[in-house]
């Protein structure tokens, strides 16, 4: 298992990784506690624009991160060489930093082992690991040819990656997982319009490149000759691309324990209260085989499924060992890379699907906007969950369930929770979006009110 015989990916294997981590822990023998995180990766990305491949890159790298604890003083050292001397140097550097550092009284302990952890087969694909530059180029050619046939211009990127992630600590934790991912996104442009599509999968052979090309080109054709529309409040249907981006910002500002403990999260004052419409249930699930699973966090703690919002009620946030100990609650296994003053965050958001097709959602708009995706979103006021951003790559005005015409892009300035409070329909087909080391699985949404505050020239 997990032996990539192709020249595209060089894997160390669990046995070799364990030996490397033990060597690094040995270099920290003077520390009270120590932790080693290892990642190795072979990553490739074929980028295209103007219907041609213009950038095409391949990278082999590794990262060894050592965290040493001496009298509640913590030091971290990172190296990207796995040679014995570099590993030893990283361990010794972490200990030296810890000795010179100041005590963190809130630190309790690195996590203790909670039983053996088996790698998940669903997280790895031989096909993805073995993807060659030629195969990536042929996939991109599928999109380019469809664009050319429609007298359109395609841009985008197709990336494949093969990684190994492992964590060990001096208390006996050991966790190892090989991972693969394939992800392609394209923006297809016409004279006056553009259309977007993306696909992501653990196994590259699960991606239907023809369907992706058809989706993006179709959207570009339908969004031609957009007309200006006055900003204001509109009901909207957000396609999963837009929903995923909105939810990821909500998670960033609200679903982590550090933000909760510092009062920066909207959850701090509203836990147990209704924060969205009843139809909204948001969960973090790092074990779902369909959503780039990673069974443990970056401290080697098993991930738990965490209901964040259940039927509109604020239910829970995610924890790592530090924030869990500080609050005296169970660790949910959501640590990010140390050192991390931001605290834990969810990495596998799921929005529970409903029972409507996209056509039914759009068809139910009285007078509203059908939005493909958002662009350059940013947080204005975290407690009120107010974001701003632009629409992009396809917006249409819909009246009495009929698409009237494409619309020039608009700026929105909107509270996410207030928008979700007006939910009127949820799509039945969740879409997988790649997000950081994990993913996001979300359907389309129909929302009763969304505030657009500005417009642009295209």
């Amino acid at each position, binding site marked *: 298992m997990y032996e990539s015989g192709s020249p595209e990916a060089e894997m160390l294997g669990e046995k070799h990784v364990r030996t490397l981590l033990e060597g690094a822990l040995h270099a920290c023998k003077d520390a009270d506690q120590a932790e080693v995180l290892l990642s190795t990766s072979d990553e490739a990305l*074929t980028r295209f624009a103007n219907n041609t491949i213009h950038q095409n*890159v391949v990278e*082999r790298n590794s990262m060894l991160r050592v965290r040493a604890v001496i009298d509640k003083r913590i030091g971290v050292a990172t190296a990207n060489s796995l040679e014995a001397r570099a590993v030893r140097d990283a361990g010794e550097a972490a200990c030296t930093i810890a000795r010179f*550092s100041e005590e963190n009284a809130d630190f309790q302990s690195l996590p203790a082992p909670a039983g053996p952890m088996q790698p998940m087969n669903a997280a790895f694909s031989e096909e993805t690991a073995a993807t060659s530059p030629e195969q990536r180029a042929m996939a991109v050619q599928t999109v380019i040819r469809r664009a050319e046939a429609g007298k359109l211009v395609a*841009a985008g990127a197709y990336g494949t990656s093969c990684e190994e992630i492992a964590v060990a600590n001096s208390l006996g934790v050991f966790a190892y997982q090989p991972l693969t991912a394939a992800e392609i996104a394209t923006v297809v442009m016409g004279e006056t319009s553009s259309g977007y599509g993306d696909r992501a999968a653990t196994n590259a052979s699960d991606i239907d490149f023809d369907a992706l090309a058809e989706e993006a080109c179709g959207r570009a054709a339908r969004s031609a000759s957009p007309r200006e529309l006055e900003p204001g409040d509109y009901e909207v249907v957000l396609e999963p691309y837009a929903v995923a981006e909105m939810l990821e910002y909500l998670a960033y500002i609200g679903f982590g324990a550090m933000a909760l403990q510092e009062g920066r999260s909207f959850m701090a004052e509203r836990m147990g209260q209704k924060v969205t419409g009843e139809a909204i249930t948001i969960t973090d699930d790092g074990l779902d085989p369909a959503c780039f699973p990673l069974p443990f966090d970056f401290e080697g703690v098993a991930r738990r499924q965490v209901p964040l919002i259940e039927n509109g009620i604020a239910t829970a946030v995610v924890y790592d060992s530090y924030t869990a100990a500080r609050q005296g609650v169970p660790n949910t296994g959501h640590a990010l890379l140390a050192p991390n003053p931001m605290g834990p965050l969810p990495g596998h958001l799921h929005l529970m699907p409903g029972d409507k097709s996209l056509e039914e959602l759009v068809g139910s708009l009285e007078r509203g906007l059908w939005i493909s995706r958002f662009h350059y979103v940013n947080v204005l*006021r975290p407690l009120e969950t107010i974001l701003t951003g632009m629409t992009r790559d396809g917006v249409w005005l819909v009246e009495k369930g009929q698409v009237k015409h494409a619309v020039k892009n608009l700026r929105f300035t909107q509270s996410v929770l207030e928008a979700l409070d007006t939910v009127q329909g949820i799509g039945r087909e969740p879409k997988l979006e790649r997000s950081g080391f994990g993913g996001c699985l979300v359907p389309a949404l129909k929302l009763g009110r969304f505030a657009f505050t500005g417009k642009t020239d295209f």
Partner: protein
Amino acid sequence: MDHIADRALNQAQVAGATYADVRVVNQQAEVIAIKDGKVEAFARSSNEGFGVRVIADGAWGFASSNQLTAVEADRVAALAVSVARASARTKRSDIRLAEAQPVKASYATPIRTNPLEDVSVEQKLELLLACDAAMRRVKGLTVAESSLEAAVEDKLFASTEGSRIEQRIVTCGGGIEATAVTPDEVQTRSYPNSFGRQAATAGWEFIESLQLAENAERVASEAVELLSAKQCPSTVTTLILDGTQLALQVHESCGHAIELDRVFGMEAAYAGTSFLTTDKLGRFRYGSDLVNIFADATVPGGLGTFGYDDEGVPAQRTGIVRDGIFVGYMSSRETAPLIGQTSSGTMRADGWNRIPLIRMTNVNLEPGTWVLDDLIADTDDGILMAVNKSWSIDDKRLNFQFGTELAWEIRNGKRGALLKNATYTGITPQFWASCDAICNRDHWQLWGTTNCGKGQPSQTMYVGHGVAPARFRDVRVGVA
């Protein structure tokens, strides 16, 4: 480094590359962060590797590795060529590079004190803990954060055209952040700049010049004061921007818009294209007559200052906007010939494992003639905004919206009440056309932006912006 470079270049040519360059890079970095009296982060990192960029069959290929061995140099160079051959499946024409003279040279950031080797850990912690204590003395403060960051990067560039350039780039940055929280409000104040720190290509002397501890109590008091400040009104008014906010305005609405690869659609699928299309060069009115902008990789201390770019082209100062007219781009050896020019030397990679892209160097707004107090006194009714808090701009760099940490009413030429949650929005050329005053060189300062993102795989670049406060008329403020 030389051995790996030579081996990779030879192997790339043997494998069929008609052009190849190699960068061998070693970066040592350190970050220290204190939060509420506790050391939240104290980390050192060592990162080294090499990347080989080739043209074969008329197309680009790139491969990189962290393993600095001769065997790996052979594998990576051959792989780069096979990647280029895969690229050639879709090529429309052969890649052609602008002429560039082979360079044999070296460059090092001028510094007085090496921040990694010549400053003790105790000294760094003492500074940050002093900042932390001063902030936490302020009643009502919820979170106090302070941080330092430093890096030393040694890199060798060599090409099959005969260039061989060694550079040492030293960067240093620091900052403090104070956050006050009530059940329905979060307000943060930062110093000298938001999102972590102010930074420069400089040694430890730069950190000492920031006077972080001296400003800590004031910044924390402002965070608490903001909780009870008035909301920024929703209106159309005169706007004065301080240097930190104006730096980001230049960054988003000018800096990214003048990247020639973006103009040619090479970033279309990611952050988008640019409204500054090539038909506008030399004739489009970008701003008022007062607006003069240069891209300058030679200005001392700028976070985008270097000796040679990552294609081996010397650092330059290029006119971008002259008397309000758009006159220049930032370009590369591949893109410059497409508009009949040579490279302006702005190709930069954020590591050995990334290809160079056209990146901002220091995109600077030339100073005007005003003293800030006189400018405020000359403003009957308006708002002064300072220190960026949020930013967003459309995918052609036209419609923007920014938020700032601080704002004050201006009434009858006097700075009045503090305002919170200030935002402003506009369309790029209309906004710059409304600029009717820029402060003088005494107010001009270089600001470092440490989180400039571009490219796939993503690259984060350090860039600089020299600006002095400026005034804009009829701006829509208070959007949210």
